[in-house]
């Protein structure tokens, strides 16, 4: 089914009257970005890599290093797979093989590679290629059935990871020890990657990666749990109190939850991300926190999720991206509030005809760990 991505790319090439495209990745992965090589091959590369797609329907994946060939060949849905110690040289040979030397080409994500690679690739091409850096992200903006099943499994892993956090958190443990436990636990459940931020404080300014802090009674533990399963990142955001919390925490957490619900209701097909953001921000404005609806008191109200497609992008007031039914992203009205510090509440959602539907079994609540 992932092969559909190549088919749609070929249709795009025909529409644009281009002979072929080359998609690039340098081995880096971002949970906020599309990995173009993954989208067009199903392979998450470990080194520099490229996929060539010709308008004639042929496709070749090139990966570094040579010893990764067997894995890449076993996964890739391109017609050919080649491993090399020199991507640029192999690319040159494969362009000739595809009859694309001197042809009109588009390049996907070349602008995200190093200057050195950008220069080397351009030296191979007879003419200036068309930059199509967002093509992979655009073509994959609606998860297909296989991808959606992986999304749901990833959310299941995230929720189990959070349960593990609640079960393991205790005064005296260091942040990195807790993070190590839940990170490896989620790997054992199948998470191939995890943008895991998890930190604690008596008054958090924001969530961050785990450090050496020793957890104490009264800490507020923030968890941005972001496993990736079969190329699908998801995210849930949770707030956990170690011990008891002042009543104000419940009041303010209810505010964050209200913003989440308001945002989900507003997230209907055709609505812009700006409108969804405004719906969430209005809750905080009504609560007296208008001045805090901007960095550094929050970052965004949600965002798309790589490595397949980062669409619909950031949930921010100035985004005019329109939602489409079936889009998957995370909504999280995470917010710094002076009385409590930073609070986190977020779910991976899918857009339906009457709003966003959370993919979690249990949406975020302010949780307590007895000590």
């Amino acid at each position, binding site marked *: 089914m992932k092969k559909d991505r190549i088919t749609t790319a070929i249709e795009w090439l025909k529409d644009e009257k281009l002979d072929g495209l080359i998609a690039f990745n340098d081995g880096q*992965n*971002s949970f906020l970005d599309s990995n173009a090589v993954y989208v067009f091959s199903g392979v998450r590369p470990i080194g520099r890599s490229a996929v060539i797609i010709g308008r004639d329907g042929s496709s070749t994946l090139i990966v570094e290093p040579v*010893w990764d060939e067997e894995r890449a060949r076993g996964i890739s849905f391109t017609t050919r797979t080649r491993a090399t110690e020199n991507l640029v040289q192999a690319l040159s040979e494969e362009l000739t093989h595809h009859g694309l030397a001197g042809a009109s080409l588009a390049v996907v994500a070349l602008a995200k590679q190093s200057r050195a690679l950008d220069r080397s690739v351009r030296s191979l091409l007879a003419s200036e290629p068309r930059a199509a850096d967002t093509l992979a992200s655009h073509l994959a903006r609606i998860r297909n059935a296989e991808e959606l099943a992986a999304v749901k499994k990833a959310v299941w892993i995230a929720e189990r990871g959070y349960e593990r956090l609640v079960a393991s958190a205790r005064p005296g443990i260091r942040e990195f020890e807790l993070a190590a436990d839940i990170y*490896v636990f989620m*790997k054992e459940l199948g998470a191939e990657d995890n943008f*895991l931020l998890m930190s604690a404080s008596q008054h958090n300014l924001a969530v961050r990666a785990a450090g050496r802090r020793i957890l104490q009674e009264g800490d507020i533990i923030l968890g941005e749990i972001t496993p990736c399963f079969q190329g699908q*990142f998801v995210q849930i955001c949770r707030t956990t109190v170690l011990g008891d919390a002042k009543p104000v925490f419940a009041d303010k957490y209810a505010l964050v939850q209200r913003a989440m619900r308001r945002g989900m209701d507003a997230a209907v097909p055709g609505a812009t991300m700006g409108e969804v953001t405004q719906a969430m921000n209005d809750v905080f404005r009504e609560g007296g926190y208008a001045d805090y609806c901007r*960095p550094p008191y929050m970052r965004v109200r949600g965002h798309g999720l790589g490595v397949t497609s980062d669409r619909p992008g950031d949930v921010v007031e100035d985004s005019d991206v329109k939602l489409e039914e079936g889009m998957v992203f995370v909504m999280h009205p995470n917010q710094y509030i002076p009385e409590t510090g930073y609070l986190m509440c977020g779910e991976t959602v899918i857009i339906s005809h009457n709003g966003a539907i959370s993919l979690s079994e249990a949406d975020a609540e302010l949780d307590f760990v007895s000590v």
Partner: protein
Amino acid sequence: MLTVHPSIVLGSYLWDEERLPRDEFDIRMDTIRSAIKERGWAGALVYGDAREHAALAYFSNFIPRMRWAMALFPAQGAPVLLASMSSRDMPAMRTMTWLPDVKSGWEWRWFDEWVASLPTDGKLGAIGLELMTPLLFGSVSRSIEDRFEIEAADELLTEARSRHRPREIAVIGEAAQTTKLAEAAIIEAWRGGADVERAALAGERRARSAAAQDVRTLVSRDGGLTMQPYAARFEDRPANLLVYVAVKHLGYWCETFVAPEALPALRVACDASLDKLIEGMRPGERLSTLASHAQAALEGRPLHPVLSGRFGRRVGLSLDEGCEITSDADGVIEPGLVYALHSGAIDGASGCISSAVVLVREGGTEVIFRSSGRQ
């Protein structure tokens, strides 16, 4: 070894002022200060990203967890670090570097302000320019406009790092201790009946619990013939275990191959080849000669394919700091440097790789870490 790069490096990355204090960075900064003075630069910038950040980490201790960062050193005045993260994340970023002023690289005005603060026009030195994306380089170029010409100065890092500094060597030694813990956990899990994936995870868990900043693994699903990254496939328990594990501690890497039950004859040959490498790690020894001797000790077996023809290389802030030990390498072994060594081969359906991390001194070689042999 190349492994799948994670979306975020999430270990404990705080600047450890006891192990790598400010005076250490004062010494390291002499390289930049001297270049600024001698070459008449108005300032210097040092770039790094999540994947390759040796230069940035060497001068600033900052390691981007994701995206990129740039340390900006003016000829006079306080340095600034730009990190490609939100302003919300800056308090956390400030705990990762000695540079007092850390700004969000998403607000490009900070770069413009730094440029505007430079009192003289002329030249800016730069390390890591080739790693930048064309987009970011374009932003830098537009900001400096006609005031400055950029002078690439990557050789400064090469010169500064012609020797591993004593504190670097000490920290690599600590990374080796964590690697030892990971190796023991992998072997214990394997002998307890775990599949290769779970055995590798046991090692990762142990290292992360010991404050490793990063842990990378590869496993062999076929008894040591090939290696692959983690794939959440928990069914493979071949007759022979081969796992690669690399551990990062305070910015510095140590690595090993875990192969405790390799075929005896193969193990003997791999260990003998590794011994040849270690014996030959003398200042001035030709890299190609070393490779030749190590190859001969494999008794006609080709070098294991996952080693890509290399018997070793420098290791430290990067898993690959260059100086590759290959049959066609030109250079020689330099004193004061830490090298990762490995030799391995395949016999029939079984593979084995023996490995070590060593420090070359004028008066002899110190083995910092050596993979466990057959047990």
